[in-house]
């Protein structure tokens, strides 16, 4: 079902954990749908992401995309992190099964939510960042036969 990269990030997820007094924390998804991601960012005064941690309740793809997303933003500037799309996460994982694409969207949203929290805490505005929805309700129905 999953690529080797996905399995690797699931088996050995990078950056699991919490950051105390994080610069920004974002939580997205909801338990009803079976996916919740929380991302902690530690951002320094040069707007560089010094550290990032995540916690995820969800399927294999949810864990792997969280892990990969944290890897992709670590050491980046806020603007660079903002540019990390779900597509980038998927590509870095060598792809996801169609039913699992929403996990990568969730990972993107989680980063955005943490950045939003950072911006709010610091009273700044990050260009191109919109207030994240709490829940990405992209619950597209499979075609029913």
């Amino acid at each position, binding site marked *: 079902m999953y690529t080797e990269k996905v399995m690797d990030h699931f088996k050995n997820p990078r950056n699991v954990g919490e950051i105390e007094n994080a610069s920004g924390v974002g939580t997205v998804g909801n338990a009803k749908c*079976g996916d919740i991601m929380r991302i902690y960012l530690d951002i320094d005064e040069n707007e560089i992401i010094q550290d990032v941690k995540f916690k995820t309740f969800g399927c294999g793809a*949810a864990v792997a995309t969280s892990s990969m997303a944290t890897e992709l933003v670590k050491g980046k500037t806020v603007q660079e992190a903002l540019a990390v799309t779900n597509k980038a996460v998927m590509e870095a994982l060598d792809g996801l099964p169609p039913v699992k694409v929403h996990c990568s969207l969730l990972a993107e949203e989680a980063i955005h939510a943490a950045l939003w929290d950072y911006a709010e805490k610091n009273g700044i505005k990050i260009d191109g960042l919109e207030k994240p929805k709490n829940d990405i309700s992209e619950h597209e129905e499979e075609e029913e036969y």
Partner: protein
Amino acid sequence: MDRKIYLDNAATTPVKPEVVEAMLPYFTERFGNPSSVYEFAAQNKSAVTAARETIAHALGAEPAEIYFTAGGTESDNWAIKETAEAYSQKGNHIITTKIEHHAVLHTCEYLEKHGYEVTYVNVDENGVVKLDELKKAIRPTTILISVMFANNEIGTIQPIKEIGEIAKENGILFHTDAVQAFGHVKIDVNEYHIDLLSASGHKINGPKGIGFLYIRKGLKLRSYIHGGAQERSRRAGTENVPAIVGFGKAVELAVATMDERMKKELELRDYLISHILAEVPYVRLNGHQKERLSNNANFSFQFIEGESLLIMLDMENICASSGSACTSGSLDPSHVLLAIGLPHEIAHGSLRLTLSDDITMDEIKYVIVKIKEIVEKLRSMSPLYEDFIKRQ
């Protein structure tokens, strides 16, 4: 553990070597169409007859009441749709439950789009159908009650005899999806007043792609699959002789070993359940404590999600499932777990372990250790658990 520990016997089972043995000659040697005139093929008819007799005997039925199908799903479709059609003069109302397999639920939903009315009766927190609700649901137009014998996810065995009696008293036909129960539990169609019963080969170490529908003598049901005159003109299609022979053999073995098997499975299952409940915090057992299949254990672990759990178990050579196999690729939590009242997030953290008598106590102990480790690991990664702990 080197050996794979297969704990997903409710999804499907390995074909027993004796069953493969019994089937083999029918692929290459005795391959003839049993409806043929020539002896070499006509002999196959007696092989089919023997399998039919074995199965009928296991149910207290007549051989002529057993119709071979391509599996449990087809049997369910046939039973429900053709009862609806044959008895539409009498009424258009069907009663079933919220915890049926999709083969029954989606068939009922199909009928709802075609002018039929369906009542989906609730179950209690143990997954037992509410008999008072069922009785109240009966209308003058009710033509069928369809209640599964045992649930595929949580293993709860329904009060089939009582339901059969309710159906009989009210002159309503009674269908039971016994795909999980047949070969695992003693069933007598007359004692239980069952009019229609579905079963499938691959759930009892028989081949896939074969099942049967028991149709009580005298019922007006017609064919669902139209064509040739096979199965007394009621189910068309060249007879799948190897699979029928294999199914017959599997039933023979299942019946012969039932008591011993149940005893062994019960011991393993009860050990597993009691230890998981004692050793893992924030866990619940789903399904009835006593009235459940001897090989079924179903847990919900709070704060974690099922698929992750399954993959981690797989990494430890343990094969299990979360909800039913059919839906494990999907994001919706199992309708069965919701029906017994679990909140979504708890339903998502469910684990079904379905044993066989092939499993050893050592393996069960290993499984318990691994479940503990994995649940702990997943919780350490879970934002839900983090919130829960911080709220303490």
